[in-house]
């Protein structure tokens, strides 16, 4: 068989290739959608995760006291969470203000409490 007998790509091959490429693209879009996370408040006390709250689905504002020493309470609102009151001396956790966007964090070192909105896509890190 001479080399010239082998025709590299026929018209039908092209059509099949395009169909396969299109099929692969559809599969890829189905199985690997853009990672889009809703803001979830992750509350942990002394290194143990205590609760996860999806802030988009909070019906109305409510107070959430945490079982920690010194005592502290969070305010959970639709789309935001913040430390309402704390009996720690420095009140740095209250100064953290309202946590709204992914990556926002409030920490109370004396009580061992960390409230963090799960890291999102648009920022990789935050320096302060």
């Amino acid at each position, binding site marked *: 068989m001479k080399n010239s007998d*082998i025709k*590299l*790509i026929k018209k039908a*091959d092209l059509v*099949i*290739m395009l169909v*396969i*490429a299109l099929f*692969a693209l559809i*599969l*890829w879009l189905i*199985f*690997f959608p853009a990672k889009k996370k809703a803001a979830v408040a992750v509350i*942990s006390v002394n*290194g143990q995760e205590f609760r996860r709250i999806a802030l988009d689905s909070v019906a109305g504002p409510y107070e959430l006291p945490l079982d920690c020493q010194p005592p502290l309470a969070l305010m959970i609102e639709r789309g935001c969470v913040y430390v309402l009151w704390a009996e720690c001396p420095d009140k740095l956790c209250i*100064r*953290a*203000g*309202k*946590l*709204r*966007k992914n*990556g*926002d*964090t*409030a*920490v109370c*070192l004396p009580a*061992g409490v*960390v409230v*963090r909105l*799960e*890291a999102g896509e*648009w*920022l*990789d*890190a*935050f*320096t*302060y």
Partner: protein
Amino acid sequence: MRKFSPLACVFVFLFFLPSCFVSPPAEESSFLAMDTLVSLSAEGRDAKETLSRIEDRIKLIDGAILSAHRPDSEISRLNSSGSAPLSPELYGWLETSLEIQKKSSGAFDISLGKIKLLWEDAGKNQSLPLPKAFESLISGGLQLSDGKISGLDNRLLDLGAVGKGIACDEAGKILQNSRCARAVVSVGGSILLYGGGNFKVGIRHPEKGAQEIIGVLETYGAFVSTSGSYERGVEIGGAWYPHIFDPKTGYPPENGLVSVTVRAGSGLVSDALSTACFVLGAEGSAPLLKFYGAQAIFINDKKEIYTSEELAPYFALEDNAYSVFILK
């Protein structure tokens, strides 16, 4: 001889193509250490084990070496004895810190422990310390020789201005021996951005809430640290005195700066330089930044932002009340 049909080749290629798009498993974790929140995230086949190794390492160097609160840490033992043989790790960190102290003409100082305690007391007593209180605490020359540190006199070592950066460096070493392609390690405001591609780093707004950003810096993998006057300090008679001190006076510098963010090739350097540059001011920091191949963003209380020339194209301002100037 049988030949492969080109179509078969295309088929095989397409079959394996999706594997290029599958991102490796991503892991996240956070814990309290170094008096702050440490957050880790990594992508790679061994991400989970790597993050757990980083956590162990950071907790170890905090508790066993750097912590000023634990009486059995190496720093605490050194402070109580005045001089003791140093572990190789601490020796290395002190060596680099003392080099920065020298290169910054004393604007950076690792022996401000007592000055910090005096300010903490001042906050509790609500009385401003007099300059005389600091006279004997103004740094002389610390010396490292024969595996020991000397010249501490009545001062106390405090590695608070480099500890978070050191933690990032240690995390970086672990990541280099892992199969992680990309990772972000945040130890308080000190960050390690590890791996390929660019990273978007939010810089805290100095006036608004603790979660607000003033702008976004896009950077390649590097170490980034910020020193801000809003972060830690004491309030006396309604005035705020940040825990950043000019080692020559014992008082916070009065140059109008509210925050300095530094990008460097090492965590210790970025952390130390953010403090040193806060004391030196935007103009005075240029030689120090140049020596360490570092860049900085300075924000002052007149709503002005001065950025190193290299960072300017990659800094996106989010608050139009501020103006950006380029440092030449």
